[in-house]
């Protein structure tokens, strides 16, 4: 009995120590090591997250900025553009990615080769490719209108970059061209994770082709698709390159989105506080999106 209590006490000491550690207590050199590992991380976090966000909030905290922003007709146009961009470009390119992800899962060698080419727009650096598109769309000397002239005899091709909605459509087309491959690959990965026995069972029950997509594939991909949509919406809200390098926000400042307007207000007009306010005006949309995304990610039920 005495031996057993000594043994129990001997075993209990390390257990207590371990408990104390996990409850937050550190002893001796452990504290120094912990600090040594912790400080660089916190420094980076403070430098690149807390400070910029805090400084941004401080710059854009004056309510008068928002009065100025909402009285600017360019801002209202920009707001409309941003909503249209999110509603059309994000949904369209994800829907395309969903369809293409099925096509590219075919086992044909040619399809695999095509996939390689298809991914190139995403793999290529954004700025030179957008600049190339900008020049291709030039109404007078651009490649597209010259092809239209030489092949079809169209002397004055469409004003790709000189009419608001056509220009903005070209911005969205360029965005879709750039980002569809990425989401296609993500959704391909999702499709490959669908258990084969589920698919085979569905086939036995006669669910093939479109019926299989509607009743098996899409329901199983729905959660992933929603998460992709949320992520893409959040990223697209901050997308600067597409608009800036395709249209430059023109003609007549009519194709800006909040990201480009923020930069314009901050640096072209030299009012960083106003630029920050323009960007922060996206927060009422951004914050619910992030919360929704977190909730989807933290759901316990397993779904693709």
């Amino acid at each position, binding site marked *: 009995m005495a031996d057993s209590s000594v043994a129990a006490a001997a075993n209990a000491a390390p257990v207590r120590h371990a408990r104390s550690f996990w409850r937050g207590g550190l002893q001796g050199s452990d504290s120094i090591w912990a600090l040594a590992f912790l400080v660089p991380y916190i420094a980076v976090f403070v430098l690149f997250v807390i*400070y910029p966000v805090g400084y941004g909030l401080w710059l854009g905290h004056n309510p008068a900025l928002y009065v100025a922003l909402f009285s600017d007709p360019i801002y209202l146009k920009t707001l409309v553009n941003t909503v249209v961009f999110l509603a059309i470009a994000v949904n369209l390119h994800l829907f395309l990615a969903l369809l293409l992800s099925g096509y590219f899962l075919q086992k044909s060698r040619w399809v695999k080769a095509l996939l390689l080419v298809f991914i190139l727009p995403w793999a290529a650096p954004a700025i030179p490719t957008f600049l190339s598109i900008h020049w291709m769309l030039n109404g007078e000397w651009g490649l597209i209108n010259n092809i239209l002239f030489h092949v079809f005899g169209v002397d004055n091709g469409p004003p790709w*970059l000189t009419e608001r909605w056509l220009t903005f459509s070209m911005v969205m087309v360029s965005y879709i061209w750039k980002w569809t491959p990425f989401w296609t690959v993500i959704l391909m990965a999702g499709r490959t994770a669908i258990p084969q026995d589920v698919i085979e069972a569905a086939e036995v029950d006669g669910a093939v082709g479109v019926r299989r997509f509607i009743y098996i594939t899409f329901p199983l991909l729905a959660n992933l698709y929603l998460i992709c949509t949320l992520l893409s919406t959040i990223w697209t809200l901050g997308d600067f390159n597409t608009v800036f390098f395709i249209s430059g926000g023109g003609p*007549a400042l009519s194709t800006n989105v909040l990201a480009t307007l923020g930069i314009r207000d901050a*640096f072209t007009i030299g009012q*960083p506080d106003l630029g920050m306010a323009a960007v922060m005006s996206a927060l009422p949309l951004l914050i619910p999106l992030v919360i929704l995304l977190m909730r989807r990610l933290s759901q316990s039920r397993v779904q693709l």
Partner: protein
Amino acid sequence: MTNMRRRTLLAGGAGLAAAAVLARPNIARAADSKTLEVWWNQGFYPAEDAAFHALVAEWEKQSGIKMNLSMVTGAALDQKVVSALTTGTVPDLIYSDDGAALALPQAAWNSKLVDVSDVVETQKSEYSDTALRSAQYYDNVAKKRSYFGVPFKAQALNIPMWKPLIEMAGYQMSDIPTTWDKFFAFFEPVQEKLRAKGQRHVYGLGYTISTNGADPNNLFNQSLIAYGGEGIVTPDGKLHADDAKVQKALVDTLNMLAIPYMKGFVPPSAVNWGDGDNNSAFHSKGVVMTPNDTISISTAVMDNKQWYYHDIVTAPMPLDNSGQPVKVMLSVPQGFIPKGAKNIDGAKNFLRYLIQPKNLDNYLQQARARWLPVMPSIVKNDPYWTDAQDPHRVVAIKQGVLGPTTVWPSVYNPGYAQVDANYAWQVAVADVIHGMKAEDAAAKALKQATEIFAKYQTA
């Protein structure tokens, strides 16, 4: 050793990290009189940068001060400058090509610049009157106007034209009218005749009427003066939106730019051009002429002797419609020292060296003379600048150094810099193109300008 709880540890770690982060700028920018941190606008071509490097090397040898030089392209530098002036983490000396258009007047207004009168005074008698006036900004905290920039070069609008295209259209260069409206109207039949000869996509007028870069504002504001709108802002900093003469000049300018576009004499893409696009359109012979703010279009192709000496002709701005010379708006880029600079003496030392006429003359020449000297004596004493063998430089010099010039309204009031930065005039041009009456578009733009000026009331 006492136990350290997780909360204590996290708090300690955060404190140490925050201290390190906040201390970083001050540690990095410790004062040092033997080094000078400079942000300088990268040149349009390599010769410009080489000329500046040579000047710096000579100054370093004489002064014993080492220059930490960052050469940055225009748009990126402008962003750096705004960020620096906002956060207060500044270099010792800044020069940006476009600084005088926005950053300088605004920063001076907000009392963020060091007074450099003592530097300017060293060469005051050498400077042109316009150059001196262009460097005097209003400090709204000190409630005084003073020198907050050191002028060292200038630029003014001129018009390169393709002589072979004009001749192909059946005209001689001597056929080109010399008064404003007739001069620009001349290029409309030139285009029609070139089109008739199979030049499918050549345009008569290379107007930049976009909402990007500096060119659209240069063209608009120069045209405004030609139509009698110089009084839109007076030296006291007041905007004269109700002045009938100003309103008429605005309407005339809008019509001058919008109507040829609507009639197809300006490339449709000109509503979306950046600063380099009119240069590209001109070099590819897509336009017969294009107003440009330096002679960079010509000097960029200086190595092509046929183009430089024979095919490209540089014209000064035409006379006004009554036959009188039009004052040319002189953009005067300046070096400036932000408050918070660690080595103000070093920065002033360099600026004093830079504006010595001999050094300035040499520097501008080595940079292929794209920029105009701001000291008439340089032009008068050195035959290089008026050498008639050069078909472009001499035109720019006669116009921008020896001819009548005027300052930009943004010198009088930073509100005008913000009007330009908002592209209020170019949006008005677009409004006219889309069917609005020029009078209504002018009124709308003037309303916006009035609202902006309300934030910049001078004493």
